[in-house]
């Protein structure tokens, strides 16, 4: 059974965003990391890059597949999780602690279009 954290917002493409004030921390869900298998590389954007809700901003590659990362929110990348450069497997260990990018949100109301924990739980059929 996949871990789902209360208080986060979830996208159908299995990314989550954790909102803290004007910032959003974006990563992939436990369900997604489980589906992908052992992560071997995370292709991240650069700081100051713009991301757009619904558009891809990088990829996660596992031993089996490369999967596009779709941003659930729009804004500017203010930080990337540098630890993933050397230890991409952290995404498997704890995907919620190991967010991928920190975004300065351009429109915080976008999160309302996403699913909450209960809706996401139903979406993945658990």
């Amino acid at each position, binding site marked *: 059974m996949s871990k789902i954290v209360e208080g986060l917002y979830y996208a159908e493409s299995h990314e989550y965003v954790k909102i803290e004030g004007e910032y959003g921390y974006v990563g992939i869900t436990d369900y997604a990391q489980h589906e992908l298998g052992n992560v071997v*590389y995370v292709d991240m954007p650069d700081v100051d890059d713009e991301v757009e809700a619904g558009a891809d901003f990088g990829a996660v590659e596992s031993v089996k597949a490369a999967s*596009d990362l779709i941003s659930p929110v729009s804004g500017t990348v203010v930080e990337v999780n540098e630890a993933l450069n050397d230890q991409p497997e952290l995404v498997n260990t704890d995907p919620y602690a190991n967010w991928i990018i920190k975004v300065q949100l351009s429109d915080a109301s976008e999160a309302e279009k996403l699913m909450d924990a209960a809706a996401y739980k139903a979406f993945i059929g658990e």
Partner: protein
Amino acid sequence: MIYVALPNETQHRLPFYLAMEEYVARMLPVGDYFFMWQVEPSVIFGRNQLLNSEVDVEYCRKNGIQMYRRKSGGGCVYADRSNIMFSYITPDSNVNFTFNRYMLMVEHVLQKLGIDAKTTGRNDIVVDGKKVSGNAFYHLPERSIVHGTMLYDTDIERMVNSTTPSDTKLKSKGVESVRQHVTTLNKYLTISIEEFKSFVRENLCNSEIILDDVAVEQIKKIEQEYLTDEFIYGHNPAYTVINKKRIEGVGEFEVRLEVKKGVLRKVNLMGDYFLVGDLDGELLSLLNGVEYTPSAVENALQNVNTSNVIMNLKKEQFIKILF
């Protein structure tokens, strides 16, 4: 499964077919699709691979072998017109399930031809323990693309030469290829490559869709991204260069450079040289964020006298250590 055909026999470059997969995944109604394609000699490396640590770039340029990056994961492969490429597009998103089902379908077709084909855990199909097919997976939000090679025949020498990197000083932070022994299907078959393709198609597909010229134009638009230098070369993962050099009268040097997107990020210098200044503060830190080219490095060190940091070291000697 539905076979996807093009409106005519025009030959395309490799990225066209990768774009065609994306077109099928993004534009066609939900369903299972399959098509086969062949290209002029090309190497294709995985999404997160470092070109120079996978490919002999000079050999490829000299021999007219094209170099392309794909969006699926995994390692580097060589293709020519006798290595048939298979593309499979499905709405299923579970990676293991989709992969296994597809691999078993292909394995089964080969077995029907009397070939003792087996799927391995590493997404390959082997015959007599040697690889005939390597497969990779690209996961889009609502579709999955699985594609792979099928070695009917090929120029093994060119395959080995083009995918053996000449530059072994580089250590990629990205994904490295797993090199394996290969064999070709024509050693086990008496039918021609065209007969083989027909057999595969008849066994996997029960209907056909023929794309029109409008679709081809749209595919060409998607193809543009694959053709950019930014995608092929700029998308390289970070890597480390390790150079060792002895300079007479100065000492032994070992430098480690971390390069990301063509820019120096971290420089370490070790050795038995004699330090007379602040190595990091007066020299190495000046290189952070500098483009990894001799001219850019020279520019960044314009006002530095290297012999004030390392005894007897001339600036041009230091630059030679870095490249």
